């Protein structure tokens, strides 16, 4: 393998895929990037065994071939060679020889045949998104994905395509986000998959630089392709819980408020909450809306009244401050409202003004007060 390339596109390519390289693994070959040259196209692949990131860059090819290169030293070196023209060649003992106008660098590589290969074909079911749309979907939902490995089905985002909608749902059993969007123009057939959080995080990082994304879905695999990156990932196996059944339809008590000042108050008060259960209490009556917290163990307490409108029965309802704040933070700006049933049933939070073609809803389960 032999080619010439400018530092910048090379570094960008390496940086794009190396995000998936695990920091500690017994499968040491995963510390490498798989580089393959065919003609003028250099294809770079990195993987953690479950997710594969693949990108291609244009180079001035001289001799085809492939090799495994350790990701870290290659990336570190490329960062320090701004503007350089690089010539790269593989020695017979699989060493990577990089030369610039003034320097020569050797990185020992490995035979590429050991590297696992990503499944080649893309599933048939294809949906096209604008990168911005997809980014927004992920930003508003992934925070509620569970980290509990003991309930695997909750450790990913449910993507559910129906006839005319895309529903994205995340839950950890205490809170839930459901985001429904009109289906993009050329949506494929009805299908649902649970995409692992890690895959989505890798995708999110790369959406900044893209315009549109194609998503290919199969029941066991999902592939995302942007202009210059392909992410192939396994999906989470397991059955996502029947979420629609737990969304209350008729919560009679309505609280509406400005998100920013409400959040600020919750944040201040939560400093006084018990650090283990993070309990904050919202006391609601048509006269006053109050947020309070108290930690009997340390004797700390705090309360604050906040602006807003409450229409309903007086009620004290407890929440885990972290859940409440995270939900608020992921609401689109402006006002939000929470529809409440009882002090022990799910509250339904929605933005006062939904984004175009979007229906966002968050559920929060309260903490039952003594």
């Amino acid at each position: 393998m032999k080619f010439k390339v400018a530092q910048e596109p090379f570094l960008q390519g390496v940086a794009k895929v190396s995000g998936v390289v695990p920091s500690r693994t017994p499968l040491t070959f995963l510390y490498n990037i798989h580089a393959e040259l065919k003609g003028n196209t250099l294809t770079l692949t990195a993987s953690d065994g479950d997710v594969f990131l693949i990108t291609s860059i244009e180079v001035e090819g001289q001799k085809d071939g492939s090799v495994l290169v350790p990701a870290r030293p290659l990336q570190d070196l490329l960062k320090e060679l701004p503007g350089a023209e690089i010539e790269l060649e593989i020695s017979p003992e699989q060493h990577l020889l990089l030369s610039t106008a003034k320097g020569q660098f050797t990185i020992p590589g490995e035979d590429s045949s050991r590297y696992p290969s990503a499944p080649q074909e893309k599933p048939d079911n294809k949906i096209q998104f604008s990168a911005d749309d997809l980014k927004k979907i992920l930003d508003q939902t992934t925070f509620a994905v569970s980290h509990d490995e003991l309930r695997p089905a909750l450790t990913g985002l449910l993507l559910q395509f129906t006839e005319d909608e895309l529903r994205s749902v995340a839950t950890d059993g205490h809170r839930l986000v459901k985001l429904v969007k009109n289906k993009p123009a050329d949506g494929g057939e009805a299908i649902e998959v649970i995409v692992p959080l890690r895959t989505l995080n890798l995708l999110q990082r790369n959406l900044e630089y893209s315009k549109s994304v194609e998503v290919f879905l199969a029941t066991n695999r999902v592939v995302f392709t942007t202009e210059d990156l392909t992410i192939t990932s396994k999906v989470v196996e397991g059955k996502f819980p029947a979420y629609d059944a737990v969304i209350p339809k008729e919560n009679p008590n309505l609280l509406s408020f400005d998100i920013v000042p409400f959040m600020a108050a919750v944040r201040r008060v939560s400093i006084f909450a018990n650090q283990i259960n993070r309990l904050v209490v919202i006391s609601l009556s048509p006269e006053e809306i109050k947020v309070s917290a108290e930690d009997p163990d340390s004797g700390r307490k705090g309360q604050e009244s906040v602006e807003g409108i409450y229409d309903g029965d007086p009620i004290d309802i407890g929440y885990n401050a972290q859940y409440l704040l995270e939900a608020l933070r992921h609401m689109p700006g402006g006002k939000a409202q929470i529809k409440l049933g009882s002090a022990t049933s799910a509250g339904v939070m929605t933005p006062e003004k939904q984004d175009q073609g979007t229906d966002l809803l968050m559920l929060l389960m309260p903490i039952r007060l003594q």
Partner: protein
Amino acid sequence: MENPTSTLSRKINLLSEEVYNRIAAGEVVERPASVLKELIENALDAAATEIDITVAGGGQSEITVNDNGSGMAKADLLLAFERHATSKVTSVNDLAAIHTLGFRGEALSAIASVARLEATSSMQEALSGHRLKMAGGKVIDLIETGAPTGTTISVKELFFNTPARKKFLKSRSVENSHLLTVFKRFALSYPDIRWSYVSDGKDVYRLPPETLENRLQAIFSEELGNLIFPVQLEDDGILVSGFIGAPKLARKSRGDQFLFVNRRWVQNRPLGFAVLSGFGPLIEDRRFPFYVLFIDIDPELVDVNVHPSKSEVKFRNEHEIYNIVHRGVRQALQKAGMDATRNYAVSPEEKVDPTTGEILPRPLDSRLPHTSPQQGFTFPLPQQNKMPLEGYQIAFQPEAKQATDVQDADSLRQASNGEIERTQVYQFHQRYVVTELKNSIAIIDQHAAHERILYEKALRALNGGKMHSQQLLFPRIMEVSPDRAVLLRDVLEDLQALGIDIKEFGERSFVVEALPAGVKESGDDRIVLDILDELREKGIARKPGHEKLAAAFACRAAIKFGKSLSLPEMNSLIDQLFATQYPFSCPHGRPTILQLTLGELERRFGRS
């Protein structure tokens, strides 16, 4: 260079040809269930007391067995996967009296050659363990790693390199049922071991150490009820024990019949006939009684080196054994008020044929359907409350030794009130929280400390207060075994007070709607089973007192060793600990804090 200690601590040897040729070796890995069997045997041979099993995809995608046994040193870990490598046998003489379940030194190498596997092992006292990765019998990787004492062997992609063999596997569900059968055999013969069995992510069994009888109930939940009778007969150094089922329980197929010789599950038709003959006419023709029987015998008098499956045995004196089994069964039935000979006097002999072990045919008229079981019979209650309870009391009787600590407790309390700034707090090995006090370093056992905190909280909650509970979006439905259901009903109200909102949902089902807030991060409903298990382990089968329930709750809900804590979490733990009444010991009486004073340090460094 080879580390000299690892050579020294090596226990596994390669068998000499002479020994090896005398071993009934051969096909070891027929199907996933054989892998499971071998791995469990190894764990048991390593003296494990806790064994956790995970299988997935009918055992084809994964079979993992985790034990807390002796573990292996690095050199042994590598050697274990060689052919003819064993620590259990060295000479031909050893084969004459086999005391372990394994003895061929074959299993691991055979498994390794047809799968990808990962073996992690750590010995007690060792600073770290090792993880070995293999595929198709070749070592891929060996790294040093932190690991709890014991061994975990995880077999993935079984038969990935032997497609022909793979083709012969049955459907997932068939392989799953073979796996379960293997598991049940071991769970029955080792009731003193804590087992768990997870299949495709689902908890299938979680068994605390318990009496054989409780274990039977747990494994065959519904059917048994009071319909099992203990067998116990010793003669000439041979002991037959276990349980037989009432004739009512007899089945049309040979399902639930288990025979163990020196705790090894064996297949032995003649022995089966001996049991059947003990039942005599109480069992209808072509029906198979339920039994779980153990034969304990000097290993010199039984040969297990008969067949590669290690599940066939030859007895030195088989007749004697069949006879004892027959009598043992008959006697047990008699004690239960059922006379197997009664309707049977007409029959000349129903005897086990001394050569074939077959029961000789009996006259037709003796095959009377059995009449209803006796009314007056009462079944002995399971042995309970064997656990001493001192542990709980210690907490309420501060010891003399703790009195001196109390002075420093003030300094600790000041520290926790922010009067002395706790600048240095860190976690050691994800087990201990270390902090600096005015004149000492305090080392806090994170689990014991949290246990103390939760114990007092739970006690307050049970005595009138209540705990906050996080409501669940998806209520969880739990199925429990009948005896657990009884216990659970007894504690239902108390659990409510502890913040566990649980209700009856059927005879053996319960629904959990809320869990204690901030107690377990995942809002894990297994806390309920954990508490039940803890109570059962302590021998409590009916309504426990508040102290015991609080202790069980605290023990199972407290953060575990191995959980990493953030700085705020550590600070909060310390604060809460010193807000308790007896911060210096956990509810079982173990210390929560050790202190290393400046004076002590100076003495140790020879400065004073």
